[in-house]
Each structure stands twice: as C-alpha cells, then as structure tokens.
C-alpha cells in the first residue's frame, strides 16, 4: 500500500481481485399465441422506457432470402425495405412524418433467414406507434415509383460496393466458397443482373406470400408496466388472418463449392493494402458444439489477444487488426478470417494465417487461453443486453433458429463447461485450412507473382474492369 519501499507508486504492483459477481439472468419472457395464430413474446424490462418491437417471419416459413428464386435475388430485401414507402392510408412522406412526430423508428429489412419489421419508441407513445407499425406490416402500398427508386439506389449501391475494397471482397468471397446457385453465394440484396427484374408486382407477391400471422412472431421488450401488450397487439392485428393452404416453402440449403481451395485476386491497381478473406463453408447455428466453437473462435481470432491478432498486429505490425468468425445461419455459413494488410507483405500474412489455422488443429489450447476465452464470453454476456432492442434481438434470434426458450439461460454454464479437448475437436471439425479459399482485393501486379511462387494453389485474377465480375 502507499508508502512502502519509499516509492509512492509501489502499491500499483498489487493487482486487485474482483468482488463477488452480481447474479445475472437473461430477462424472463412470455410466449403466447393470439387467436389469429400470431405468436407474441414479451419481455418486461423495468426502467427501460425506450421500447423495442420486432415482427418477424420465420425462415422455415420462407421468411428470408434463402427461399427466393435465384433469378430474382434481392426480392425479399427490396420487398421489406419498400414496406415503409407508404401504406393504403398514407404516402411515403406522410408515413415518415407520422413516425417522426412520435419519435419512433420504424424499419423493415430482410436477412437470409427472416423478414423483420422493427420499431423503437418511447413507452409514452407506444400505442400510437404500434398502430402505425401494424399499418406498415399489413397494408404497405408499394408505390411503383418508390419501388423503382429503391431499385435504382440498390444498383448504385452495387457500383459503390465495387469501389470499396472491403465490400468488393465480401461480394467475391461467398461466390468462391459456395456452389453455383447456392443462396448464400449470392449478394443478399441482389446483383446487377437480378435487381433490374424486380418490379412492383414481384414485390407485392413476395410480401403477400410471406406475411401470414401463423408464420409470424411479434417480440416486444422494454418497460411494459401498465400496458396490456396482448390486448393491444391483438387489437392492431385483428383483421390479419392466415390465407387458406400452406405457406411458401422454407429456405434452401447452400452447398459448398466442390473441389477445395481457390485463390482469387480481384485487381485493384495501385491498392495500398490487400483486403483479404480466408475460409470455407462451416457451421449452422444449431450445431451441437456451438459453445466449443465459440471458445475456439475467441482463441483463434475473436479476442484482441487472439493468436491471429497477436501475431499479425502486435508482433508483425502487418495490419490494423485481424478477426475470425463463424457466421452461423440456419444452414452452414462461412468461417472467415478477415483483415487488410500492407500490399508488400500480402503473401507472408497469408502464410501466417494458414499457419495459425493449422496450429489450432494440431494441439489443445493452453489453460490460460481456455480460461481467458471462457471468462470473456461468460463475462460480456450481461453487457450484450443493456437495451430493450438488444433483448428483443436476442429473442428474435431464438425464434429464427428455432432454439429452445432456455438457450440463453444455458449459455454461461455451457461456456464454462467447455474443455480444451472440446475445443480441439471443434477445431479439427470446423477449421479446415487445406480447403480454405483465399480471396483478396489488391494490386495484382504486386501480389500475383509472389502468390504463384508461394505454391498455395492455382491463382485466378479478376480484372479491374467493372464488367468482368458481374458477368460471373
């Protein structure tokens, strides 16, 4: 303590211990089925006056982009985004203004596995906002003119994505690892070829097919004291009934591209960095070793002091940061290492990354690595759910992936139970460097020859000209 050894700062040598942790449980939530078949889940969070709601159509009922036809890729996203462009009762601007007067955020979007309409609003204005929310969900007008505007904006966005190295590589990488025609290999919001085919009729049909109460779940979180949620939701969705017959088919799985490793260089002449992606098709969210895979990834490339970041950033100074991740979806999603490295050390960086992917499969992680990853994942768990929107989002995740209601309660004990042997087994099953593709956007004139000389596999170079990739 202060004063010892004559150095007033000697006390800093004694690291404090944490006090006793305060218990934390993921908030309780209630599930009920309304008369029209809509599932309602509500989580009362005292002291959270900003309420969050999500109305989502499940993936098994076709509610995501994986169930749309390949030639109309982007339809589900466009249909969702066009929902806020006006309703039967008011045009786009009147709708926006009504929402702004309530201080409400109403948005609609789609992912691979779901279509979601979301709301955030202070509780004092919840009832008025809920009525507007239902109007958007059930009676969007899809004005042809606004659909056309969104379509043009998406095509312009594709131009911008080509100019941005990070977005360009994220476009090429899935095409490289998934088989032709696989939904996950396509751009979620559609391509230069498919987007021009999407018109009002396509969007109207998609919305009509998806929005049925028996396939939908409404999640509401926040301080719900004094609000009869079930009654209010039932009231605004009263006229919503399921059409006769079964709904649309569920999403299609996305097979990996056969044949193993591919190396693709998308040329960006003069690029100062190589924007790099290395990986392969890996895991679905419902994998039984989810928790071991989470620890595995934290150790490999999830944490700041992960093996990859420590080597490439802190030891080598090659990059501002490197991360790895499993993108777990309803069907197997990608495992990917992501980083941007200085052009001249592109090949050494790739060799380092592949080396770490081999090493994590070769032997068990150390006790120190295991406890760091476990303590981190268990410790940040309550930090993830400070807001009502975060709680609603987590519950929506359970719905989308058809996980049990106690999945989040089981999270921390399951993380704590993961052993080094579990991690090694997960690494050997789900990290496969031999078949990992290597995709980069960078200066081909600088990196192509060193890449070929490194003997990592056959190298394909995509030209810098705009049309080259779009043709693929």
């Amino acid at each position, binding site marked *: 303590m*202060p004063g010892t050894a004559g150095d007033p*700062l000697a006390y*800093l040598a004694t*690291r*404090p211990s*944490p*006090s*006793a*942790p*305060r*218990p*934390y449980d993921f908030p309780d939530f209630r599930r009920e089925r309304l008369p029209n078949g809509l599932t309602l889940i509500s989580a009362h969070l005292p002291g959270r*006056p*900003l309420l969050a709601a999500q109305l989502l159509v499940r993936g098994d009922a076709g509610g995501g982009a994986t169930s749309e036809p390949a030639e109309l890729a982007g339809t589900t996203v466009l249909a969702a985004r066009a929902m806020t462009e006006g309703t039967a009762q008011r045009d786009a*601007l009147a709708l926006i*203004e009504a929402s*702004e*007067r309530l*201080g*409400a955020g109403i948005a609609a979007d789609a992912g691979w596995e779901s279509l979601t309409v979301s709301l*955030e609003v*202070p*509780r004092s204005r919840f009832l008025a906002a809920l009525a507007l929310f239902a109007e958007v969900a059930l009676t969007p007008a899809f004005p042809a003119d606004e659909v056309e505007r969104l379509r*043009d904006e998406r095509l*312009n*966005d594709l*131009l*911008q994505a*080509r*100019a*941005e*190295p990070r977005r360009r590589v994220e476009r090429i990488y899935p095409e490289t690892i998934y088989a032709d025609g696989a939904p996950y290999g396509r751009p979620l919001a559609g391509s230069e070829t498919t987007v021009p085919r999407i018109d009002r009729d396509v969007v109207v049909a998609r919305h009509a097919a998806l929005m049925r109460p028996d396939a939908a779940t409404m999640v509401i979180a926040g*301080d719900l004291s004094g609000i009869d949620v079930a009654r209010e939701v039932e009231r605004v969705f009263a006229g919503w009934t399921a059409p006769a017959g079964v709904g649309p088919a569920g999403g299609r799985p996305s097979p990996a591209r056969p044949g193993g490793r591919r190396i693709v260089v998308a*040329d960006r002449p003069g*690029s*100062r*960095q190589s924007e790099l992606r290395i990986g392969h098709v890996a895991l679905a969210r419902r994998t039984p070793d989810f928790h071991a895979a989470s620890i595995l990834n934290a150790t490999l490339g999830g*944490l*700041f*002091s992960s093996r990859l970041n420590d080597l490439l950033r*802190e030891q080598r*100074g090659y*990059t*501002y940061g490197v991360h790895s991740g499993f993108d777990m979806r309803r069907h197997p999603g990608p495992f990917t290492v992501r980083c*941007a*490295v200085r052009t001249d050390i592109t090949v050494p960086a790739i060799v380092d990354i592949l080396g770490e992917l081999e090493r994590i499969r070769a032997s068990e992680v150390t006790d120190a690595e295991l*406890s*760091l990853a476990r*303590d*981190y994942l268990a*410790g940040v768990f*309550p*930090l993830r*759910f*400070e807001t*009502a929107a975060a709680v609603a989002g987590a519950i929506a995740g359970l719905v989308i992936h058809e996980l049990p209601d106690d999945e989040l309660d089981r999270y921390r004990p399951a993380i704590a139970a993961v052993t080094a042997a579990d991690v090694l087994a997960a690494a050997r099953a789900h990290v496969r460097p031999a078949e990992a593709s290597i995709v980069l956007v960078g200066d081909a*004139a600088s990196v192509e020859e060193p890449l070929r000389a490194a003997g990592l596999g056959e190298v394909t170079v995509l*030209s*810098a*000209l705009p049309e080259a990739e779009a043709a693929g």
Partner: protein
Amino acid sequence: MTTTDAGRSRLRFHRRTLPNGLRVVVAPDSLAPVVAINLWYDVGSRHEVPGKTGFAHLFEHFMFQGSRNVAKAEHMAIVQAAGGVNNATTFFDRTNYFETLPSHQLEVGLWLEADRMATLLDALSQENLDNQREVVKNEKRQSYDNRPYGTFYENLMAAVFPQGHPYHHTPIGSMEDLDAASPADVIDFFRAWYAPNNCVLTIAGDVDVEPAFAAVERWFGPIPANPALRRLPYAPVEPIIGGEVRKVIEDAVPMTRVHVGWRTPPFGTPAFDALEVGMQILAGGEGSRLHRRLVREERLGQDVTAFVLPLVAGASILAGWVTVRPGEDPDAAERIYLEECERLTREPVTEDELLRARALIESSELAARSRMEEVADRLSMYETYFGRAELIDEMLDRLLAVDAEAILAAARAVFRPDNRAIVTYVPAEPAEAA
C-alpha cells in the same frame, strides 16, 4: 426526479476532485450488473505541434502497450478476461479511454487505468514504438487512404481552417510525421499531458457511490499531479472563412460526391445548439429537407447528409455531402443542396418540423441513456469541456427549447457564400485494361 413526456428521468450523479486534481464523476444505476469506466484526457490533435501531426493518436496506441505492472498486450487481455470490452479514441480536443465491465470488476479496471496513468513510460521501448507506428499506418491506409472518398475529412478540415490553425489537420496525421516519431517524443507527450490534473474520470453503472469514490482514491490518489500543466489557449480564429474555397479531386470513386463545409461557432454555444436542431431538420432523417428534395423528389442524390462536429476551441465545422447518382448533373445537386441550406436563412422552419426534430432528438437521447458506456462518455465530455457534468440533462433541455427564430439567426451567420468550402470528388478516367 422529473420526467418528461418521453419518460426521461434526470440523471443522478456525484462529483469530487481529488487533491491531485483528478475530477471524478460517479453516476449510480443498477438496472444491469454493468459498470462503465471512462477517462477523458484534455489533449487531442489540436495540442500537436507542426511536424508532429498524428502524435496524440499514436500515443493513444501506446496506452495499450503495457506499463510498469502490465506487460505488453496484457492490458486488453486483462479487460477481456474480466468479461469486459474497452477501447479508446482520439479527437481534435481530447483523447478518451473507456471500458465496460461486469460491475464486480470495477477495481480491476481502475487499477489498469491508474497503472498506465502513473507508470506508462516504464514500458516504452523502440520495439513497441516501431510496431505501433506500423499498426497506425495500416489504420490510416485501411480507414482513409484505401477507401473511396476516404481523404475527404482531411481535405475539408484543411479548407475550412487556415494553415497553422490546430483544426487544419485531422487526428490521423501524416505518414511522414508518424515516420519521424521518436521515443523522446512519446516521453515528452506523456509528461506534458498525461496527469491526474488533466483528466476527468467517470464511473457509471451498478456501483455504490461511497465505495466507488473510495476505490478511485485508493488507485489514483497517490499519483502525483503535473505541477507545470499548461492549458493550451484556443488559437485565434475568425468566425467565418472569409471566402469560398473550392477543390476538385479526381479519385477512384464510382460517383461524384460534393462535400461542403462551413465554419461555425463552437460546441457549447447557443448558436451551436440551434445548428444542431437545424441539422436534424435539414438532413436528420428520411423526412428531412435535403433527403426529401435530393433523394426522393429530384432523385439526383444517392445519399445526403449534414451535421455539426462538437469542437470547442473557438470555432467548429458544419459539414455534409451529397453523392450524385450516375448520369445526373453534379452542379444541379450542389445547387439544390446549397439552396436548401440558404432557405434556412430566409424562412423560419415550421412548427411541425420542430416538433418532429424534438421527438427524434429525445428518442435518441433515451437510447443513449440506456447504455452505461454512453452515459459515462457524456458525463466525462461535459465535465472536461465545460466543467459541468450537469449538461447531460441541461443540453437536452436546451435543444428542446431551440425555436425557429434561433435556427434562423444561427443559419444566417453560417450559411454565407464567403464561409464555405466545397470539395468535390469526381470519378477518375478508368485506367487502360491490362
């Protein structure tokens, strides 16, 4: 406690100053078992001297490279092992360091911050300097140089503030200056600016007030003040640019983007408050004037924005841009953009526009209030800049009280042709195919 229509409560907090000058704010909130620790050092890129741009930010990186009792790379590992997240950012006027932890790990976070405030130089080495210099140069390449329009910020600040003014350059600095950094520079920078009497420390979250203050005293109390601490005066600056500055840059961009900047009064003034609300009305959302006109009606713009930066040293900047759709006329897009800015100087905004702006501002305030990291950061900011953590509530009151007359007056002082910089990025001619 008072409550507004949107359900906002007044924030409860306590403030003390330690004998060594460290200002401490504690805001208890037990909704979640989470605590945010947040330190604002009153030093940023405006404190840099010519030839040493980018140093405040390079220095920020050193704060993660270990100190007397923390090994290299151990800082982040300790925070993560505690189940926490942390980061730091460097801005023109300040540098902030922050961690959010499970609340029982409060002292671990305080110890880490105290150790680097007190003993950072014990861990300084040429090797660490060389490594972090490379990391920062990669950050510059990744976030600025290698991105379309990535250099607009540098260009706009350089156009709105004159050579020699501290806002003329941005916090990322120049590659040449970073290359010239020596260990002696790092030592000088630390000794000049990193001391308890140049810092505000905020703790927000699941803590008891007295034990929290006691813990801060235990870990920070013995750290000596810097008796020679300087308060860098604000560099003199004219209220307006004094002319129109134009720059056209050919770059690897797919669409023309017109960036516009105006010099404004600084953050903290009533005129700045009025501009903030004015920007909500001008470009704050889909219902805003610029979005409505350029994106929806005329369909010249792919996206449009306008915002004020919260700079305090005598002046600030209002900036924005419109990305012009391919095939549309960039001059027309620019003309309409400027027309809408100037309309704010001629006719008052409507009551409905004000009502919508206020509702949106209030909701975004509620969102910020629900995250302890954000609460702590705002308390530190208001205490550092203005010595008034109370502004966390007062600022919202002030914004909600801004009326049409105030916006008109503030807009008239700013939106003048002799007070704007226009930096236009145009697509370069495509290179010949290889």
